[in-house]
């Protein structure tokens, strides 16, 4: 792996070297390396690009890393990764995609991740997207996540796209059975001419299931963001969707939260707020000795922390 690829790996997965335990690292459209553990097996798909991941029932406190690195300009790929999580598991999955585009053609990675959580399974999924490069080629990422949560399972997703991704359409669809919980925390920062769209559809099908979706974003320069969120309460359930955006410069932000109750005991809330950094916040930090530019950095870093 060369220096650029190592940097990308560190950015998206926090890894300096090959991780311990189960992993699958994909570099420039090829499988770079993979490792199974006793409880987690990774099987390459035969019919299309991607992998099937099987986590044995009862696996606790294990982690799985599946970063993707693209450093070859103009590469376009579509990858299917399916996660089959057994009953009573408690695992952490770290995914992420880093693109370095030094050329003039667009590089594109679209990952379709499907999670199948069996009863009582618990998964924490962390995903980071990062782009860089000195060429004119665009860095494009269009991740799709499908989550099917069985009874009393729990999925917590933390996704972050902080820098360098020119265009992204992020689609998340989830279906929850009785007692299941879905928590999504999304952080996005766009700058330049970038575009980012988030599109959630959550079906709260089971009794006493619940979803909590929180998106915090910062739109700088002339970038554009769209936040779409549909939460459907089809049973006695609770759902909450929230979009909180800081808008700067000539950016545009659209938030369209939608809640739909199809059951009398569905309790659904949506919140959306868009605004520039409050003047009094800037003034307060200036009275502590920071310059206006340092103020903005502090406020944005805190907001997206």
């Amino acid at each position: 792996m060369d220096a650029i690829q190592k940097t990308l790996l560190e950015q998206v997965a926090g890894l300096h070297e090959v991780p311990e335990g189960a992993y699958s690292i994909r570099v420039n459209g090829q499988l770079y390396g993979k490792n199974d553990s006793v409880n987690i097996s990774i099987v390459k798909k035969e019919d299309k690009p991607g992998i099937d991941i099987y986590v044995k029932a009862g696996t606790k406190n294990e982690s799985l890393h599946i970063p993707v690195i693209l450093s070859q300009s103009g590469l376009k790929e579509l990858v299917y990764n399916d996660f089959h999580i057994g009953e009573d598991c408690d695992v952490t999955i770290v995914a992420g995609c880093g693109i370095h585009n030094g050329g003039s053609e667009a590089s594109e990675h679209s990952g379709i991740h499907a999670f199948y959580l069996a009863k009582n399974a618990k998964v924490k999924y962390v995903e980071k997207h990062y782009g860089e490069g000195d060429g004119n080629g665009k860095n494009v990422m269009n991740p799709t996540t499908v989550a099917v949560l069985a009874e009393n399972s729990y999925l917590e997703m933390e996704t972050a796209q902080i820098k360098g991704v020119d265009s992204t359409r992020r689609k998340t669809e989830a279906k929850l059975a009785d007692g299941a919980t879905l928590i999504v925390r999304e952080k996005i920062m766009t700058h330049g001419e970038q575009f980012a769209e988030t599109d959630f559809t959550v079906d709260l099908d089971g009794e006493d299931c619940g979803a909590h979706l929180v998106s915090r974003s910062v739109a700088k320069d002339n970038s554009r963001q769209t936040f779409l969120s549909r939460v459907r309460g089809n049973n006695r359930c609770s759902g909450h969707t929230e979009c909180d955006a800081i808008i700067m410069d000539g950016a545009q932000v659209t938030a369209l939260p939608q809640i739909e109750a199809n059951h009398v005991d569905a309790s659904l809330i949506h919140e959306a707020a868009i605004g520039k950094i409050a003047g009094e916040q800037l003034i307060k930090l200036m009275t502590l000795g920071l310059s206006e530019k340092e103020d903005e950095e502090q406020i944005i870093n805190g907001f997206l922390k």
Partner: protein
Amino acid sequence: MLEFKNVSYQTEDGKEILRDVSLVIDDRFVAVTGPNGSGKSTMAKLIAGIYMPTSGQILLDGEDITSLSISERANRGVSFAFQQPVRFKGITVKDLISIASGKKISVSEACRYLSEVGLCAKDYINREVDGSLSGGELKRIEIAMINARGTKLSVFDEPEAGIDLWSFNNLIQVFRAMHERTHGTILIISHQERILDIADKIIVIAGGTVAAYGTKSEILPELLNAQAGCRFTKEVRD
């Protein structure tokens, strides 16, 4: 030492808030009082650089700081505690105290500043300074930030506003301790007799001018006796 030389301030729509104010503040603990709308908060904001005077000069230790920005004044030793503390999503109490002290601080240092204002540090240090904190808690954190800065001039705009009676007793203790410890000047805008009572000097602002300026024994009896409107404010009205 802080000096106002013929300072006037008008709002954009031409309303005169302060009129030709000249005074020198060089005591350790000075309270500014006066009726609502008399120009006290404006005076504090002029010192911090949030407002710029329409005319006149402001000097800090002899240096003309009139044209300096908020940050430049802060870096020259001016601290300002807001009447309505500002909330920040995602920024923690420890972050703000670190920014205030100008360096990364250890947990034990942060704890010291928080205990000085009567907050149990471990409950607060990692809390976000957002809507989850009460008004009284925010006020104390605001004061802890000023202590962490430790500058030569600290200006407090009505620190007692929004604080319940129980907390207020503790607040007096906090200011007493600050009075003993400070190597600079503490300037407090307040309506509270008990805060005025610990001041070395009291400034009475009324109708945009200095109606009186003197020691507590000169000013306080007059202020307290004249419930129906004290002599200083009457003089200005007349």
